[in-house]
């Protein structure tokens, strides 16, 4: 059975790009969220195997979402996605329980490789 993915990104362009990459790699996209509130609701409702989580959203930081989800006991793997590649930011994401951190711009192949590795 294919694994379930939730995509969180404020940009419809990025959501579309990530969805295509995930579906082509055989994953099932269970939902898309463009803000933090929707992301938390959808994540708790669908309990996906993995969430691709943009770090800068209009209403919340990805870190905040990650913390809320972990506090709620959600065990989904989380791959943080951000254009910002500061080492402190990458470390913070990992400290909060993200499995990996990918910096934009990235290729579909690179994203799939990270997701495959995290889910393996």
């Amino acid at each position, binding site marked *: 059975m294919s694994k379930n993915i939730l995509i969180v990104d404020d940009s419809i362009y990025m959501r579309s790009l990530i969805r295509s990459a995930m579906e082509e790699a055989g994953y099932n996209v269970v939902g898309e969220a463009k803000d933090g509130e929707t992301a938390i609701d959808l994540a708790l409702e669908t309990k996906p195997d993995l969430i691709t989580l943009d770090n800068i959203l209009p209403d919340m930081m990805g870190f905040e979402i990650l913390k809320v989800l972990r506090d709620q006991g959600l065990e989904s793997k989380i791959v943080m996605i951000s254009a910002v590649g500061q080492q*402190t930011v990458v470390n913070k994401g990992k400290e909060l329980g993200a499995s990996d951190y990918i910096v934009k711009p990235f290729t579909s192949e690179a994203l799939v490789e990270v997701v495959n590795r995290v889910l393996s």
Partner: protein
Amino acid sequence: MLDKLNENELEVASKLVFDGLSMAKRSMEQILQSPISMEKVDYSDTAQAALPRYQDSDDQSVHVIKTQLVGELKGISHLIFSEDEVRKIYKACLPASIIDSNSPESKMMKIGFLTEVDNMMAAAVITEFSNFLGLEMYGHVPSLHVMKASEVNTFLEKESGEFDSFIHFKANFQGVELDIAPDFVWVFQEEFVNKIKNLV
């Protein structure tokens, strides 16, 4: 404000700006999949830091994508494309089904692509500054402002007005293959100068 920096500090600041913009250039090349060169970098700390390209412009539409910095250093970045450049970028980077469609979703995809270009370029500069200065800072969600070319400089002046004291960095990028030459304009609050002074 720049005169507050001694020669050594100014050299450090210039290198930092150059390195940040170089990273932005690299991001732009990766996103657009086309070679880009950085033609010119200007520094200024006056409100009269107008872009000559838009001083006597016609009424062609211009797309200004703005990213506000949040965190320990305040500032704003602006990536500026002419209408013609936007069309060329769409043609090079988006599928025809989106370019030719006027559906709300296609329009959002086009805007989303432009804001992502800015997001990645701004983030490249932010990452360089953050790592070098040891500051926590992020770019907020970018916003697109479409205006007449003749309105661009007034818009930028107004943006600088948000700060009591500020410094401008302006770069022009050239993409020969795509035939584009967007401007990338940064406005930082005076704190930037103090951070450099503390560092050197």
